[in-house]
């Protein structure tokens, strides 16, 4: 059941982005690039977002106070 709906979602994703027309090795390459960029995004977010957001809040409070 879950498999069926996953397959359907995958089909919809392929058809909307145009990956449906590519050969399978091209699909792997494109999906690989998309996954790699997502992974990079998530890594950067997890590593730097807490400290970055704390420093932004500090700067804003400094501007507000002075």
């Amino acid at each position, binding site marked *: 059941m879950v498999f069926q709906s996953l397959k*359907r979602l995958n*089909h*919809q994703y*392929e*058809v*909307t*982005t*145009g*990956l*449906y*027309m*590519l*050969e399978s090795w*091209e699909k792997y390459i*494109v999906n690989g690039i998309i996954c790699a960029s997502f992974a990079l995004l998530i890594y950067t977010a997890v590593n730097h977002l807490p400290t970055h957001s704390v420093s932004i809040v500090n700067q804003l409070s400094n501007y507000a106070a002075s």
Partner: protein
Amino acid sequence: MGKGKRAIQSYKSTEFIEQARDAEGLVLGQNPFKAAPSTSSSLLSCETVCEQQPIKANTEKKGGQQTVSETASPTPAPSSSEEKEKGSSELEAVPSFILVSTYLSFLLLLVIAHMRDFFGKLFYPENYVQLREQNGYAPMVSDFESLWSRRLYGRIRDCFNRPITGVAGGRVHLLDRVSHDFNNTFEFTGRVREVLNLASYNYLGFAQSHGPCADKVEQAIRENGLTHGSTRAEAGCSRLLAETEEMVARFVGTEAALIVSMGYATNALNIPALVSKGCLIISDELNHSSLVSGARLSGATIRVFGHNNAHSLERELRRCISQGQPRTHRPWKKILVVVEGLYSMEGETCCLPELIDLRRKYGFYLFVDEAHSIGALGKRGRGVCDHFGVDPREVDVLMGTFTKSFGAAGGYIAGNRALIDYMRLHSHSAVYSEAMSVPVLAQVSSSMRMIMGEDREHALEGQQRLDQLAINSRYFARRLREMGFMTLGDPGSPVVPLLLFSLGKIPAFSRECLRRNIAVVVVSYPATSIITGRVRFCISASHTREELDYALEQVSEIGDLLMLKFHKNTTTAAGENTKKLQ
């Protein structure tokens, strides 16, 4: 006319006009410039609506270049009837996610196409021999221009040009084929599959191998042989041909008609007989390529107006009439406005009443290509003039084909007797190409007789077919719209295009339909603009209600699978139901 005569004529037209002058050299009497009327003429006074619209940035297309416009026409003409859903307003109602995803998918596919070309030429140069210059010879195929057909169309080539066998009626037999190397080569599996045929132009269901028309064709072959063996002008004018031409003229409502054996050639070879260099052709931007061919072949100046937009036509007319011929600014010899009765990619009819009004005002010649509308529109099936209730004598040249509604091939040109007599002598199709072959002519004759109701044994069948087509097409379009699909076209048009937009959905739709035993035609660039890929259903009178219901069920399932149902239903079903046969 030789060169000498032309020179004399041109001299005369630029002859100095002698004015009476007084002693100081000033013009006596009325100065021609001061004598111009200061009040607006009758022409200008009617066009208050047009004058209020400022002429926007130059939208003139270069003469001879018909580009397929990407964006919809600027403003829908306010005088168009409300029941006609214009393509432009439909496109504005598309959710932006669909448009954005279409553009992005195109970007992705193009990037991949270019990468594949780059790496392919690097690692497998022997596969790209036709694109490179070698031994001092220029490349055979242009690299950039063949990118579409190699890399994008080639990937989905199995959805187009599917081989069929047998009669292409309401059902057709498809030869199954399979490809092992991504559509480079195909091989036939040997299976023949019967599918529901929503792809063939078979509006009145005359594509039959049995029946009264086929019997008459057989009889005509036994009497007249298979071919006329000559051009119509020399020895090919038989009684059958003359009678059929007269019948066509009577059917369409004009004085005379000329039959040409090929539909494309009817336009391509007869427009050059009507206009020549020094004339002006103003044609709709979405005209068929046969009209474009004919216009370019004639050597006349070509201008394009926005699709079905009478105001755009008027602006173009006024601009061209005021400017005159391109370099010399002489008045045009003739102005021919070329439109189609029913545009098959949009399912829309032309705005004929407005065109007739403009014709009365400006005095141009009107050419209506009724390839899809003859036999399919109108209460008696007489085409777009019957549909709008316009006298066919108001249109100067009525052209049509026998392919769609009559189950034959070829085309005709109809008009008043002087025009057709002139065309019989001056048109290349009448003088140089062979007369229509006997079986096709007999099919035309018998099907037309049946539609007109003149066939004594099948007196009611013609009208039955017309009614059935009207019912089928209205039912199909209404149900599709109710389901939430975005369809184009006027109610009553036998062609129902359904918008698919994204390039990924086009082959997906076609293959899903084939899996469910339905044959459809999907269209993408370059036949339509680049974001509006569509599937075009051709409804026929030979489709039964069960077949249409089956097709609608399957299309609904596929629409759910591919997320195609994004049309918001604003009109109620009751409103559509009241528009019965007209």
